[in-house]
């Protein structure tokens, strides 16, 4: 299943035949195998899969933070080799700098490229307002809630004005209500900026709510199981979750995922048993 020969289309991000294997104490593990997909400008693509399907590995490959992989990732025709300026990453973990105020956090990528202070502060304020944190510019992350801190991270990445926004389960650590509201915020910003977005997630609702297409991955080794087009009207908000077609998409993707997730669960149980056996 090599790259489909459609090299002349308008894809901004192309992942071609990505494979990653890790050497572990129990021999090599194939985390990601033969993953190929394309993202069109302005598109919102989600990658969904059970835990252990190599989603985060894929995130690191596309972000350029993992170099030992097979296959090629290219942005607007240019093969990436390390972190690329067109790709902005938002991490799953708490990633604000606790020693910087909100505005200094958001201005960080602008500071790195040597933008004058007055200008970068102004730009940072714009993106802080965009994520709805105006008034908190001079607070430290320690004074904010988890959801607010994640919005700071999002604003920081948006401030670098990436062509592609790459997010790894950015709401995983948040409670369900905050997650839905933040999802709304992300949707609104994405639609407003026409931001090309690649979201890595294990949350079906979140994926269907936001995406144009969803790529479903298999449990280890992580391969592309299916790509589902989400034909729901835009602009969307979190209210879309109550609609009838929404339910059908969720059911369809869950049917795919269920198989993979239960395979993963059995595999982990077997693993735990073996380890327990070896230990005693």
């Amino acid at each position, binding site marked *: 299943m090599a790259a489909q020969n459609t090299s002349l289309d308008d894809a901004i991000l192309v992942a071609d035949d990505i494979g990653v294997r890790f050497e572990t104490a129990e021999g090599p593990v194939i985390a990601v195998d033969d993953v190929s997909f394309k993202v069109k400008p302005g598109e919102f693509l989600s990658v969904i899969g059970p835990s252990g399907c190599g989603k985060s590995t894929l995130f690191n490959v596309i972000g350029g933070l993992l170099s030992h992989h097979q296959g090629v990732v290219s942005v607007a025709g240019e093969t990436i080799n390390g*972190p690329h*300026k067109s790709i902005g990453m938002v*991490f799953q973990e708490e990633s604000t*700098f606790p*020693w910087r105020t909100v505005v200094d956090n958001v201005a960080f990528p602008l500071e*790195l490229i040597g933008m004058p202070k007055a200008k970068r502060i102004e730009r940072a304020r714009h993106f802080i307002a965009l994520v709805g944190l105006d008034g908190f510019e001079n607070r430290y992350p*320690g*004074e904010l809630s988890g959801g607010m801190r994640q919005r700071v991270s999002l604003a920081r990445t948006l401030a670098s004005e990436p062509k592609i926004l790459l997010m790894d389960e950015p709401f995983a650590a948040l409670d369900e209500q905050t997650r839905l509201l933040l999802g709304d915020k992300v949707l609104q910003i994405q639609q407003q900026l026409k931001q090309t977005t690649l979201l890595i997630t294990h949350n079906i609702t979140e994926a269907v709510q936001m995406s144009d297409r969803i790529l479903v991955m298999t449990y280890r080794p992580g391969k592309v199981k299916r790509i589902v087009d989400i034909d729901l009207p835009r602009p969307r908000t979190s209210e879309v979750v109550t609609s009838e077609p929404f339910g059908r998409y969720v059911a369809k993707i869950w049917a795919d995922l269920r198989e993979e997730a239960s395979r993963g669960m059995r595999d982990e149980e077997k693993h735990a048993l073996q380890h327990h056996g070896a230990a005693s």
Partner: protein
Amino acid sequence: MAETGRLTRTPVAAPLVSPVTLLRIAIILALLAAWEFLAHSGWLYRDVVPSLMSIGHALAELLMSADYYFHLSVTAAEIGMALSIGGALGLTVGILLGANRFLSKAFESYLYYLGPTPKIIFFPIMIMWFGVGPESKIALGTLSCFFPVALNVAAGMRQIDKVLIRVGESFRANSWQMVVKIYLPAMRHPIINGIRLGLGVALIGTLLAETKLSNKGIGFLIIQAYSIFDMPRMYAMLIVLFVLAIGANALVGRFGGLHDIKRL
């Protein structure tokens, strides 16, 4: 109604000084009283425990003598130099060890062995290398404060939240930006802690060296007072040192930038 009134009045009627403070004051007063009692009891050899009055007198005399400030400045300069040289070396070595697993495996165990060794055993060598003047004291203070700074920084480097490093990489920060904008600020607490410990041992090392062999400095004055058995003067100098050490420690703590402490 009377009940409510009493309840609301209670916090207002709270004592101006808390029970803890009262207890502390009581302990200090008791110690001073015991001291004074011992001084007048005649149980101990003359002036081993001088009376508070004579210590106070010696303290006043000390604080008014220009000579004392000269010696104080010599010692302060020695400690300052020791802390800057040892701190800078410790910071550099700590960053190298923290960043490089190979170097850390090869060398860090030596630091752990040498760290707790009393550095005063190297003093004869320092005298041979640097003479009896302030240089040998600076050398010993440097040697003392290098270890806690290096070990704290190395450990702090390894404790940096890995995701912050990945954030820096994802924004394509260069090596210099990574060090200045991520590693150093992320390590500010272990660095401050290392410097605080370093200051303590630099103080000990320098003063100890001065009491062993020197011709100026507070250590020299203390040992001089001791040799002519001027106990009130000696105690007065100890009190000043004690106060200065507390002040220096508080000053280092201030640099910590503790506004973001909530997240730690």
